[in-house]
């Protein structure tokens, strides 16, 4: 039995989930940029799966493996063209056992 209440690593949380990853075909892409907009930058803390991170050059990068397909980043950054957002191919992505 684990007492998880003191544990705040998102990676550990995502580890509980079931995913079928469509390797090499990320469903969300970040447009190349020099420096991120306010909203794009915000995703580095607002994405609930911590998919967005800053690289050494200060640009925002995405790794979609833990994505829960919530749509938050779409709502914040699709209209400005900073990201391209799609659902994974049918059957791929997160699979909630409980939901």
């Amino acid at each position, binding site marked *: *039995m*684990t*007492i*998880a*209440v*003191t*544990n*705040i690593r*998102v990676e550990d*949380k*995502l580890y*509980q*989930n079931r995913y*079928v990853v469509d390797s090499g075909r990320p469903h969300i892409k970040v447009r190349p940029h020099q420096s991120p907009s*306010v*909203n794009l930058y*915000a995703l580095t*803390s*607002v994405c*609930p*799966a*911590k998919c967005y991170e800053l690289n050494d050059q200060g640009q925002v990068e995405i790794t979609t493996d833990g994505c*829960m*397909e*919530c*749509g*938050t980043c*779409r*709502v*914040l950054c*699709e*209209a400005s063209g900073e990201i391209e*957002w*799609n*659902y*994974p*191919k*049918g*059957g791929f*992505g*997160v*699979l*909630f*056992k*409980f*939901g």
Partner: protein
Amino acid sequence: MTEEKFDAIVIGAGMSGNAAAYTMASRGLKVLQLERGEYAGSKNVQGAIMYANMLEKIIPDFRDDAPLERHLIEQRFWMMDDTSHTGMQYRSDDFNETNPNRYTIIRAQFDKWFSRKVREAGTTLLCETTVTELAHDTEGKVIGVRTDRAGDVILADVVVLAEGVNGLLGTRAGLRQTPKPETVALAVKEMHFLAEEVIDQRFGLKANEGCVIEAAGTISRNMAGLAFLYTNKESISIGIGCLVSEFAATMESPYDLLENFKNHPSVRPLIAGSEVKEYAAHLIPEGGYKAIPPLFGNGWVVVGDAAQLNNAVHREGSNLAMTSGRIAGEAIVQIKNRGKPMIKENLALYKSMLEKSFVIKDLRKYKDMPALLHTNSRNFFTTYPKLLSQAAQNFMRVDSTPKIEKERATTAAFIKARSRWGLVSDAVRFAFAWR
């Protein structure tokens, strides 16, 4: 498959899609339902409370075999500050009735059951199929869909968009706007497993009785938000949600908020020793009445969360989804039985039927609430909970301070924090929005 034409295609096998497909198929229509998940429910997240009345209108004997967790006999509302909560609690044995009114459910399991009923009613369901595009004829009428499976357009007289809050297809086709950051909340949620008896004990429950806690206050760190804790049979669903616009403005992390809530001294003992088995995130439409998009057009209708049919004030969504799905299905059946085409003029029937139901009436009642709470989130979610806690503590601590001084101190604290005028105006605006 591509040669066949359906009476209706339903996109999505969530609450609204299942209700629509069931309603149409059980009345003899040829229905195709498409779901991108591996099974119905694999992409869906909910608290979750399920309201019996709205499901009864679709499947009257659902209690015989639906996977229900506990029926609710108690609800608590908590106003929280960092170390305390001021609560309101309602518990009644009347809820231990033969046909209980509200249940907790686990969506992935419930949706699988609902989906089985939908298929038994005659719907053809294709899972692992993402619909990529709506297909139109030269006049712009929706005539079918394209999917990520090989093959041509799948044709149907009408398409029911039950695709949920993100509503990718409808927004890409220009039928409605992408939700705005201020009209959707991001909620994160965990499933904590505990032995049934432990849950019974901690919440004072027996034999399938359930309790839910809904909490607001400093836990949302100045944002408009709500946390919840729902008892299932052998697990507790716990989560918190705030507006996406406010998350972006504050750069708070949703998982931090959740951890914070879980560690609150009022919450921690309730989940102590539990095993976490899932972490989920999902949006909730919170724009209310004013955010409802056009509900129908040539060859299409939109139902459930995709149409922002969600009552954020009462935390109701799945029942509005089920009801709008059922009503859309009934309208389509009527039009079909009259031998009329599925064009805009005729599909307007769906909207007029929906307006007569509680769905639109309830949303209209609270049309000003989202704006009030969201423009005033600091007062409602931080200042007032803190003041309430101070007032309660002042009231309960027995010391040598004369009561009259305590009372004055409480009143002064409220006025200092918000000014007399501010308090009155918040109260009046709240009363009007609630009316």
